[in-house]
């Protein structure tokens, strides 16, 4: 079957199998930041934004996003300039192996659009579906908090 959807503002029209998941289709067309891991809606590494809301692409049928807008981490940086969340993750040492990080960035971005000044608890709740086996989460939480300040214009980039 044929579907069309935008990824990071770019329109894609393509043939898919009716039973294919969004994760598989996104990776096939080159969005390799969308990571395959548990395949069972448990780890969050496949998180993308669907119409601005974080969802799990491993358990979303590609056919169901026909006509919708998807965002992945490939669309976050502005040329060579990283997004404040990406910058803060580097500065806070919030990535080790990095496998979960694209999903953390997207969940963080969705949170900050909805709540530009989140508390530590807000951040923990938002990220509780993003598993990370390396960092223990503290640095990621700090990074989101720091990026929020930058995006509000309160601290220097």
């Amino acid at each position, binding site marked *: 079957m044929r579907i069309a959807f935008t990824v990071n503002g770019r329109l894609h029209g393509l043939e898919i199998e009716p*039973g294919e998941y969004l994760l598989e289709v996104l990776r096939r067309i080159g969005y390799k930041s969308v990571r395959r891991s548990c395949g069972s809606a448990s780890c969050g590494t496949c998180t993308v934004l669907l119409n601005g*809301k974080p*969802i799990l692409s491993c358990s979303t049928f590609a056919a169901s996003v026909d006509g919708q807008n998807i965002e992945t981490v490939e669309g976050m940086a502005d040329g060579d300039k990283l997004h404040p969340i990406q910058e803060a993750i580097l500065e806070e040492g919030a990535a080790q192996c990095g496998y979960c990080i694209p999903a953390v960035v997207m969940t963080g971005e*969705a949170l900050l659009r909805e709540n530009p000044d989140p508390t530590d608890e807000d951040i923990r*709740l938002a990220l*509780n579906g993003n598993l990370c086996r390396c960092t223990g989460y503290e640095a990621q939480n700090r990074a989101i908090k720091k990026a929020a300040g930058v995006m509000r214009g309160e601290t220097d980039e």
Partner: protein
Amino acid sequence: MLTNVSEYFRPQTVEEAYELMQNDKEHSIFLSGGTIVALMKSSRIEKVIDLKSLRLDTVSVTEDEIVVGATTTVESFRKDPVIRKKFGEFFYEAFSLVGSWQIRNMATIGGSIAPKLGWSDVSTCLLVTGSSLIIYGVDGYQRMLISDYFSLPAGEKPLITHVILKRDGWFSAFEKFSKTTFDVATVNAGLSIRPEQGRIKAARVVCGSRPQYPARFESVESAMVDLEINEVMPSIVRSLVYESFVGGSNMTASFEYRKHLALVLAQRAAEKLKGMIE
């Protein structure tokens, strides 16, 4: 990929969706949020009927009821201003315990009830608030209690179109125990009471993930009527749940463990209610 899926339908009306299901019940499945269907990995599924195209994703208010479209996501529901106005923080807080943010953005209210899942926190919360369903089936549209829906034969596959909520002076609380913050419940418990002059006029007590689907404990409910709402009440509720708990064992927990968890959760919910009413 669900390899055997060969057709993906986007019906435009409830009637059309139902007919598509009736045409091949054995190989068809309704898709709402997709969190269950996509994970079934079932070779039986050949036809997916996507209900999102029905646009049943709104929350509206009638004179004495709130009408929630079945494809409203759990996250939209918990944050909906109408729901928060009518139910305070009950659904907002209880549904924050349902899965992760990502899952709540996908899972829908109707889709959480339809598969009759034992561990559904959504079903427990809706049962304890006395909510009912509008379904479309062989007799057309029909209003039905959630408990009656759970009793339908497995072969019947009506379509849930709406959930109807009332409040009518009830106070509700929900507690859940799970192994991680976004895991499914090992046991969950909901408690609602209607107070009158410092006593319980009526009560609803629901336990889910027993592991059977959530059910009301009517013997506990009737024993709670006329109890004074004081500091002793929560421990009485605990004892009543202990005496009446019905459940079983599976790979997640034994019957004995679940029973103990259930009475602790019921007591905590009762303490919350006492705090709300005082």
